């Protein structure tokens, strides 16, 4: 259980996430229509499609850090908007944390997520409770870390992280947005689910689904 994410698992994760984003693109855009500008679904779908295209290229890197780095750079250079730099930074910082290795153990994975989270918070100058993707990312990373610290088996820990991301996503509904486009709405942002937190929860669910042997969807 010390080598939980090898190259093949990492690729599966990215591919599954890309598929989930594609599948939920209309829903993400719909959420973004209510409190934003109706593009989050198409933005992220475009980016993840490019990530997968780069991933299957003959010249593509074949170790953890470089794959994450390539994916982050691809997101930065294909998504645009707010989510491009933020998702891009997440992967780039994870790449730097992971380094050029063949696999990550649970601790290294958690460390990489923590580095990614710090990068996203710095890039977007946001904190918890502002109705952004951080509200899914923070509880997910916190949960993963503390579960592992308590000795929870990895399968359970990553599943708990995905659950936490979804709970965080749902918790954005009553929040008042104070960052990003939704903040323009003031009080009118209350009652809507944040699109970025929604896609972020997909990312963790995809992680759980690919990193847990035999797990299939929730």
């Amino acid at each position, binding site marked *: 259980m010390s080598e939980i994410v090898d190259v093949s698992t990492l690729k599966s994760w990215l591919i599954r996430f890309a598929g989930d984003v594609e599948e939920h693109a209309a829903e993400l*855009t719909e959420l973004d229509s209510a409190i934003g500008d109706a593009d989050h679904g198409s933005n992220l779908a475009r980016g993840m499609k490019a990530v997968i295209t780069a991933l299957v290229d003959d010249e593509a890197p074949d170790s953890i850090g470089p794959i994450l780095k390539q994916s982050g750079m691809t997101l930065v250079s294909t998504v645009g908007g707010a989510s491009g730099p933020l998702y891009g930074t997440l992967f780039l910082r994870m790449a730097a944390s992971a380094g050029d290795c063949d696999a990550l153990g649970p601790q290294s994975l958690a460390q990489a997520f923590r580095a990614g989270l710090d990068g996203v918070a710095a890039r977007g100058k946001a904190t918890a409770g502002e109705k952004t993707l951080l509200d899914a990312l923070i509880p997910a990373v916190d949960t993963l870390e503390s579960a592992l610290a308590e000795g929870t088996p990895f399968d359970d820990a990553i599943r708990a992280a995905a659950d936490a991301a979804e709970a965080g996503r749902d918790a954005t509904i009553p929040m008042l947005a104070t*960052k990003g486009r939704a903040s323009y709405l003031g009080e*009118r942002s209350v009652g809507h689910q944040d699109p970025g937190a929604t896609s972020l929860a997909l990312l963790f669910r995809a992680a759980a689904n690919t990193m847990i042997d035999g797990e299939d969807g929730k």
Partner: protein
Amino acid sequence: MKKLLNAPSDIVVESLRGLGLAHPELRVDLNHRIVYRSDAPVPGKVALISGGGSGHEPLHGGFVGPGMLDAAVAGEVFTSPVPDQIVEATKNVDSGAGVVHIVKNYTGDVMNFEMAAEIAAAETGVEVVAVVTDDDVAVQDSLYTAGRRGVGVTVLAEKIAGAAADAGRDLNGVADIVRKVNENGRSMGVALTSCTVPAAGKPTFDLPGTDMEIGIGIHGEPGRRRVPLAPAKEIAEMLVEPILADLDFTGGDGVIAFVNGLGASPLLELYLMYGEVAAVLEKAGVRVARSLVGPYITSLDMAGCSLTLLKVDDELVRLWDAPVRTPGLRWGV
């Protein structure tokens, strides 16, 4: 959705292709989605770049040319461009005198332009100064928002800074002019209908037949409040009043009054609105020095308009009057 397009995902690049074909005086890099004046870099001149999501045409590609922008970088519809594009444009317009980035204040735009400036400085050594426009009084500039949106003032800033660069000012001088325009300009918009983002395929928001949205942005983001459709006279008051409440526009050399169409409202109505705005301004003791009426910073097919007032002094009027030759704004040459 009823639009003149092929696949929604191709709308930006296909529109840029048409722009390039229609304007041989521009050079369009379809790969990077950059519109250049074809003689860029202009030796010795500080270069001006702007860019942002598409769907606001003629902003920004239609404002490339002598007296205005050296390049415009086009993102997807309502999505800021990515750093690679901005870096590429920055490299190609720099004559050694440096490059000013005019960035509308949206989280995405600011972050992407920031990353681009970092990369440009690190990798190419080009000196970049970015100035953010944030003139929309519909949004409170506070701890609880991402700050005011950059809207109509951006058009005026691009024109005026373009003239300053032409006049030979240095990098900081041109950046200062953009800041001066931004500090002295305020905007407010109203939507009568929603726009439809091509990739989304349906209107971003529902606006019942009897309502309008006051304080709308240029991305179909909902506005400040929804009120019953009102006569033009009252709409003019609703636009002017919060602007005047935010900054004193009386005295001095007056204002540039800019009534902007958001896309689907025809010129017939925009000129009518301008007449109403002029009447409200006169009553308020605000002198109009120059005016601009038309669709210059749009929101796809949204019906409605915005008003921008820019407090001017002699310097700004002179720069405004200077020659400009772009597809979207042209005079004096």
